[in-house]
């Protein structure tokens, strides 16, 4: 996490991009990561394609489906990430569903993650009680840290608990939603962002779900350390290809 930690302390609006591994083409992983690094993205979420992604909207669902049809699997993902380990300097975070880790073998999974130079996981269907009863110890053994999500419905008490567990950042889910671009940020969302900001948490805050362009990105960053763009990026590389990544990123951060 050392590099991610360092990035998170930067005094700037942090941009993270989510992409689905193995999409649009099976071997695009290195190309996407390199292009994102060149464009100045601060850290990258690598999505592990899953057959039944409950927390994802249609765009990421479709990209996952396509990636699986392309033949992606966890072994290939780890090979691809290992191959760029020494050249890539942008911190990576893995996002997947708990069943993938369970079936692959919890220890084997964690070992591979560490081998690839990654130490931060986002698992949207890992609830806090399961983390406390089992996964905290497992992850600690490998020096892996878990990113918790909070939503407009998460109680203050629970947010404080999550804050105490957090070593990387808290993923602030922007609205009661699954992933996907929604356009503007509403007044209700702003009130929620303000409420979280005023809690003066020790953790860094990164906003995600519904962030799609410069406007939503900068609005979110007023209340947090940065924001994650996922579906809008996937849509863009799906339509325009990997070569147009810079053209998508630049207007957001310049």
């Amino acid at each position, binding site marked *: 996490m050392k590099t991610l930690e360092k990035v998170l302390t930067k005094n700037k609006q942090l941009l993270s991009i989510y992409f689905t591994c193995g999409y649009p083409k099976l071997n695009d992983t290195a190309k996407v990561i390199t292009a994102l690094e060149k464009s100045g993205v601060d850290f990258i979420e690598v999505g592990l394609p899953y057959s039944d992604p409950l927390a994802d909207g249609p765009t990421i669902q479709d990209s996952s489906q396509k990636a699986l049809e392309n033949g992606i699997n966890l072994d290939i993902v780890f090979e691809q990430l290992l191959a760029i380990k020494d050249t890539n300097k942008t911190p990576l975070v893995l996002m997947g569903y708990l069943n993938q880790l369970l*079936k*692959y073998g919890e220890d084997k999974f964690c070992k591979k993650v560490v081998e690839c130079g990654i130490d931060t996981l986002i698992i949207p269907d890992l*609830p806090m009680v399961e983390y406390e009863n089992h996964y905290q110890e497992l992850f600690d053994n490998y020096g892996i840290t878990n990113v918790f999500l909070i*939503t407009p419905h*998460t109680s203050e008490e629970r947010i404080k608990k999550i804050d105490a567990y957090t070593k990387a950042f808290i993923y602030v889910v922007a609205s*009661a939603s699954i992933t996907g671009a929604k356009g503007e940020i509403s007044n209700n969302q702003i009130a929620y962002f303000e409420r979280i900001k005023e809690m003066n948490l020790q953790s860094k805050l990164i906003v995600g779900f519904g962030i799609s362009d410069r406007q939503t990105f900068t609005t979110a960053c007023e209340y947090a350390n940065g924001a994650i763009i996922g579906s809008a990026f996937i849509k863009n590389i799906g339509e325009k290809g990997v070569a147009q990544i810079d053209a998508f990123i630049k207007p957001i951060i310049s």
Partner: protein
Amino acid sequence: MKSKFHPDENGYFGQYGGAFIPELLHPNVKELADNYIQIIESDEFQKEYKSLLKDYVGRPTPLYLAKRLSEKYGATIYLKREDLNHTGAHKVNNTVGQILIAKKLGKTKIIAETGAGQHGVATATVCALMGLECTVFMGEKDIVRQSPNVARMKMLGAKVVPAISGSKTLKDATNEAIRYWIQNPETFYLIGSVVGPHPHPDMVARLQAIISEEMKWQLKEKTGKENPDTIIACVGGGSNAAGTFYHYLDDEDVELISVEAAGLGVNSGESAATSQLGEVGIIHGSKTILMQDEYGQISEPYSISAGLDYPGVGPLHAFLCETKRAKFMSATDKEALDAAFELTKIEGIIPALETAHALAVLPKIKFKKDQVVVVNLSGRGDKDLEIYIKHLEV
């Protein structure tokens, strides 16, 4: 004494169960988990639930001695006639109960998933009865093969939303229902089987338990004993089996047989026999036995029956399988069709395709003379007529 077949405080039956849900659903699921037992056990709920089951659903359902079927298989075979319930299957026991719980919790919008459409119809029915808004998610493929039920839901005022992802069947309808629930956490997810995050599996089992509650006194009246020797029920997610087994779980001398859909054959690649093809995994918020590949990608199950082609099984059933408390058997499409035609011909009862799977294991079991067997006749076959007609000539 607490039964080992009841879940612990985190919703686990042995290693199976739990609530693997995105954070967004946490407040809703917790609200239900904190309240469901208290609500179900309250006098007010019991009075209303029992009264609706009696006068609206038509319970108790008969326990019918199927003489010709008994003769044929050399046992004493009773059919628990859940097919005679209002809306045509056991599903309504659960929807009547859950709609009362939803009302108690102040919910006004109901969502549900459906496979064969039986749960969708049963949900749309109670929503009409209570004047609540109802949205049902149904796989696009199931919408085609169970069209009469789609028409019934629409007539009952429900909105039917096609699930177009994945295999376009029950699994995907459930995914879409959960995604909608995440985006609309104020809605009540009226789940149709003993699946999903805790407390859904236990709540649904408790509401379906009326089946075995009645069986106890009905068997006592008819045979002098509350307990049969054997109970047979089909299992997709497993709600009718859970209800039929419920009051007998701790009576280990009662043999429990769960019948899964083998599709074109257990090892044909076109099957839904989860207990034989599955391994430990997480689906729809609970840890259970799950059909999946070596990387944890969930497999697309197959069965001729839209109510049984589910790649998992409720966590209680995973536990019953692991502990060998229940014996798991399977029946292919063809065996189920044959069983459906047989029951129709010799008893004059057209069963649902799901139910036909339970009947299809009768020829596979060597019964002792006078063995008392109860087959849960979970639903009637009106919805499957199109498929039956297609096979009539063959």
